C-alpha cells in the first residue's frame, strides 16, 4: 500500500521535476544533462515572441480574474440572501459550471460568439456613419477574457460562499442594530470579513486563467497566450527554453496557490 502510494506520487511529480531540472541544463538537448546554467531563462526572457505571449497571458489573467472576483462576489452575496428551491437551482448551476470540461466551454463559447458576431457585424456596419471603417467584432483578447471570466466566476462564487456561510449572521444584524444601512453593513462588516476569500479567489482565478490552454486555444483568435505559444513551439521539438518557460509558469502558479491557501486558512480562523 505504501509502495503503491509512493509510485503514484512519483508518477505525478517526476515529470514536473525533470522539466525544472532540465531548464537549468547547459546543453541544448532536452534529454542530456550537460552542466548547470541559467542561460535558457535569459534566452526565453529575451525572446520577443515569448514576451508577447506572456504579456497577453498576464493581461487576460489579470482582467478575467478581476472580473470574476467582482461578479463572483456579487453573485455569492446575492445567493446568500435567497433561500429555498431558487437557491438550490443556482447552487447546482454553479457546481456544474465548475465541472464542465474546458473543451466544452471552449467550443461552446467559440460557436456562440462567432454566431453572435456574424449577426451583429452587418448591423453595426449598417448603422455606422459613412466615411469611417466600421469596427468589426472578432475573436481575440475580449473573447478570451469573457470566456475565462465565465468559468472562473463559478470558482469565486464557491470560495466566497463558503466564507459567507461561515460568518456569524449576528455580525450583520449587530451592524444593522447599530444604525448601519445595508450598504454600510456590506462595506464595513461583510466585505472586510470576506476579503481574504475574495483575494484567494482572485489569485486562484489568475492562476487558472494564466495556465489555461484548452479554452484559450478555441477563443483566442489571432492572440497567442503563453500556453498556446508553448504548445506551438513544442511541435518543433522540446528545447530547454520551453522547460525554462514551464518552470517559471509553475513557480508563479505555486506561489499564488500557496498564498491563496494561506489567505483562506487565516481568514477562516479569524472569524471564529
Amino acid at each position: 500500500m505504501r509502495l503503491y502510494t509512493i509510485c503514484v506520487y512519483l508518477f505525478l511529480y517526476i515529470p514536473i521535476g525533470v522539466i525544472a531540472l532540465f531548464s537549468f541544463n547547459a546543453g541544448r538537448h532536452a534529454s542530456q544533462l550537460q552542466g548547470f546554467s541559467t542561460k535558457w531563462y535569459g534566452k526565453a526572457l529575451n525572446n520577443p515572441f515569448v514576451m508577447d505571449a506572456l504579456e497577453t497571458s498576464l493581461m487576460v489573467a489579470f482582467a478575467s480574474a478581476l472580473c470574476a472576483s467582482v461578479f463572483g462576489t456579487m453573485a455569492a452575496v446575492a445567493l446568500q440572501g435567497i433561500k429555498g428551491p431558487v437557491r438550490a437551482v443556482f447552487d447546482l448551476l454553479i457546481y456544474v459550471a465548475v465541472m464542465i470540461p474546458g473543451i466544452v466551454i471552449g467550443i461552446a463559447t467559440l460557436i456562440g460568439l462567432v454566431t453572435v458576431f456574424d449577426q451583429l457585424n452587418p448591423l453595426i456596419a449598417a448603422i455606422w456613419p459613412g466615411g469611417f471603417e466600421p469596427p468589426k467584432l472578432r475573436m481575440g483578447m475580449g473573447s478570451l477574457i469573457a470566456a475565462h471570466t465565465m468559468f472562473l466566476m463559478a470558482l469565486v462564487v464557491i470560495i466566497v460562499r463558503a466564507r459567507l456561510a461561515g460568518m456569524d449572521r449576528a455580525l450583520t444584524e449587530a451592524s444593522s442594530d447599530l444604525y448601519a444601512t445595508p450598504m454600510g453593513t456590506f462595506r464595513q462588516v461583510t466585505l472586510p470579513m470576506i476579503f481574504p476569500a475574495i483575494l484567494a479567489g482572485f489569485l486562484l482565478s489568475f492562476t487558472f486563467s494564466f495556465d489555461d490552454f484548452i479554452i484559450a486555444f478555441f477563443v483566442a483568435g489571432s492572440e497567442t497566450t503563453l500556453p498556446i505559444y508553448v504548445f506551438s513551439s513544442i511541435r518543433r521539438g522540446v528545447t530547454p527554453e520551453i522547460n525554462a518557460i514551464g518552470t517559471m509558469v509553475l513557480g508563479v502558479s505555486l506561489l499564488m496557490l500557496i498564498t491563496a491557501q494561506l489567505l483562506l486558512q487565516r481568514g477562516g480562523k479569524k472569524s471564529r
Partner: protein
Amino acid sequence: MENGGYVGGTNPAGKKVIAELRGVSKRFGDVLAASELNLSIGEGEFLSFLGPSGCGKTTALRMLAGFEAPSEGDVLLDGEVVNTLDAHHRPVNMVFQQYALFPHMTVAQNIGYGLRQRRPRLPRAQIAEKVGKALDVVQLGGFESRRIWEMSGGQQQRVALARAIINEPKLLLLDEPMAALDRKLRKEMQIELQDLQRQLGITFVLVTHDQEEALSMSDRICIMRDGRIVQIGSPQQLYDRPNSRYVADFVGTSNFFDGKISDRSGELATVALDNGMSVQGKPGADLSVGQEVCISVRPEQMKLHHRHAGVDVEVHNRIFLGEHTEYLVSHETLGDFLVLSPRQSELAEGPFNVGDKATVTWEPSAALILDRN
C-alpha cells in the same frame, strides 16, 4: 389568561410607556413562534422575558429590535407603530448572545461603530471622547486599541454592553447575555448590569431561561410558554401568587398535589386530593367546583414536626444548608416532596434523621390552588 387581576398586562402606573406589543403574533411557516403578545414596557424599567428555549422570548426580542416583523398585531416604540421599520432606523440597541463583536476591529472601533454611522458625521475627537467614557462606565478604561480576541469572555461582554449603551438607546435589549459566562462572573455581571441600569436610566429588556437571573435583576418578569405570555408581574408577585402550576414550577421550587375542587365558598376552597385526602387552600385563579386542579405549597411554607397532627411522612434525605435544612420526605400516597426547615425551628424541634417518622403541616393560606397546566 386575564385572571385573578395580577396577570399585569399593563405597565405599572406612573411610568411613561416606551415600547408596546399589541396582539403581536409571529409565524415562521407553519410554526407559531409568538402568539397574541400584549405587553407595555415603561421608561427606565428592567423587564425580563423568562421561559425555556423555544418559548418565543427571543422572537419577541427580535421583533422589538427590528430583525423580524410581526405577522399580526403592532409593535410600538415611543407611541409609534414600527412593525416594518428596519433595525437600523430604530433607537434600540442589542447585546447579542455571543456578543457579535466585529473581529476585524479594535475595541474602540467596535464601541464607536454606532456613532460612526450618524449623518451628519460626528467629529472624530468627539467619538473618541465618548468611546473613552463608555469604556470607563464598563470599567475597561485603557483597552481602546485591544483586539477582540485578546479579551476574555467577561471583557467581551462589557465591550458589547459599551457598544450598545454609547448610543443612548430608548431600549437596551439583552439576549441571554450571561449564557457564555461562568457562574461566578455571571453573579458579578448581574450586579453590574443592575447598577448600570439605575445609573443610566435606560430601559432594559432581558431574555433569559435562568430564573435566578430574572428574579434577581428584573422589576417585572414576563413568563412565556409555547409562544404565549403566561403571567407578567414583579418577581415577588410571581413567586407568591403564580397563576398556574407552570409559573409556580418555573419560578422557585414547589410541591404539587393533584386533586379536584370539592367546595368553593369564602376565602378558601376545599380540594379532594386524588389519594382521598381533603385539604383547604387559597384559589390562585378563577376555579369552579369539580375542576381538576393542583395544590402548590412552597417547601419553606411547610413545617416538619416530631409529634403533631398533620401529614405523616418518613424522612428520606437531609441536606444541611447552614441557615436552612432541606428534607426530602416521603408520604405513602402523596409521594416525595421537599420541606425547607429554617435553622431556628430545627433547634426548637430537635433534629430529624433519615428514616425518622415525622409529620408535615402548612397553613391553608400557603396552599395555592392552581390550574394543572
